[in-house]
């Protein structure tokens, strides 16, 4: 894959800049990486905490050659790629929380958001690398590779590993389809089977026990009233 890396100092959001490149028809693989984001984009306009010089904040334009209705599986592939890259670059072994939170020690160390626009996927990945601490409102849910491992890590080495790893998983997905991605995800995630969770749904929180992935990659949840298929929404552990 062509890999053009556009490096920025401080930006509002790498997602916005990458979307601009995509709209201009940039080649797949184009990367926007920033040292700091002042308005890092999360789901539904939420912010991704992007402290200067400590994290890896990037968006990559992808144009996978797969049928359109299979594109959501890319988010699972990106979680796998991010977990692998973190393990290789830092030695930290992460869990994957469906669909694509990357978790270490029960807290989120990387977040992934994918937007489909102008017929391109814009994959945003934020990794908490060398953060020493987090603002109070995030302290209970966020962690960094430094906090988990007790030492600092090279963000450039992590970026190299990450782009290599994304490339590998995207090629696997294009060549072999959904099945191997789902199998690898189920093997890498403790959340796919038998985990008591609550799922944030537009109608409210839904509690249940996870019960595997369906062939599309959606999450089965056994609830008090029956088996529900979760197609979107954040999953949280509950005791």
């Amino acid at each position, binding site marked *: 894959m062509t890999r053009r890396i556009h490096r920025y100092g401080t930006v509002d959001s790498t997602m916005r800049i990458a979307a601009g490149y995509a709209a201009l028809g940039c080649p797949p693989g184009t990367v926007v990486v920033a040292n700091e984001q002042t308005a890092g984009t999360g789901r539904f306009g939420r912010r991704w905490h992007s402290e200067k010089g400590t994290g890896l904040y990037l968006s990559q334009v992808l144009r996978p050659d797969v049928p359109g209705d299979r594109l959501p599986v890319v988010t699972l592939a990106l979680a796998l790629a991010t977990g692998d890259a973190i393990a290789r670059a830092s030695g930290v072994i992460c869990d994957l929380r469906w669909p694509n939170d990357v978790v270490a020690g029960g807290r989120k160390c990387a977040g992934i958001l994918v937007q489909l626009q102008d017929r391109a996927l814009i994959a945003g990945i934020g990794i908490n690398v060398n953060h020493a601490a987090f603002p109070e409102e995030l302290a209970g849910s966020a962690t960094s590779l430094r906090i988990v491992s007790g030492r600092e890590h090279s963000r450039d080495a992590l970026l190299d590993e990450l782009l290599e790893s994304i490339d590998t998983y995207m090629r696997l997905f294009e060549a072999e389809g959904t099945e191997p991605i789902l199998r690898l995800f189920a093997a890498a995630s403790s959340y796919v089977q038998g985990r008591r969770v609550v799922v944030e749904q537009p109608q409210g929180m839904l509690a249940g026990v996870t019960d595997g992935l369906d062939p599309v990659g959606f999450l089965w949840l056994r609830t008090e009233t029956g088996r529900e298929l979760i*197609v979107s929404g954040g999953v949280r552990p509950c005791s």
Partner: protein
Amino acid sequence: MNAEEIRELIRLAQESGVAELEVQRGENRVRIRLAVAPAALDFVVPPLQAQAPPLNSQPTQAAAAAKQAEVEAEANVLYVKSPIVGTYYESPAPGSPAFVKVGDQVSPGQVLCIIESMKLMNEIESEVSGVVLRKLVENGRPVEYGEALFAIRAS
């Protein structure tokens, strides 16, 4: 001509893309007219479940539904449908105004809604200039592949 033969003719008409097919065999004559003109197939068409009446419905209802589909096809009404299974959101964030409301003028490329599937946020854009006639899905509801989301009268 039996039901199986008529079904076969309907299939032929659909596959060939003709708008109308008339077949005479002896004294039997059958005319098949597709509700959606082939030219409109370039655009989005309403999903099957929105068009086809339930099997147990009365013929009058079926005729009315076909008539309705026909009228809308003639009146340049296009349906924007979901390209994936997911959750429908009418606005970019909870509490913020909807991307579009009924009666709004829209232009090609304008975002109409978001369908989220496993944290893939799929911005659904209008392919045409026109007016939003109906919003067919309630905010936060799950949508199926191919489900109609908006009716837009193209201008």
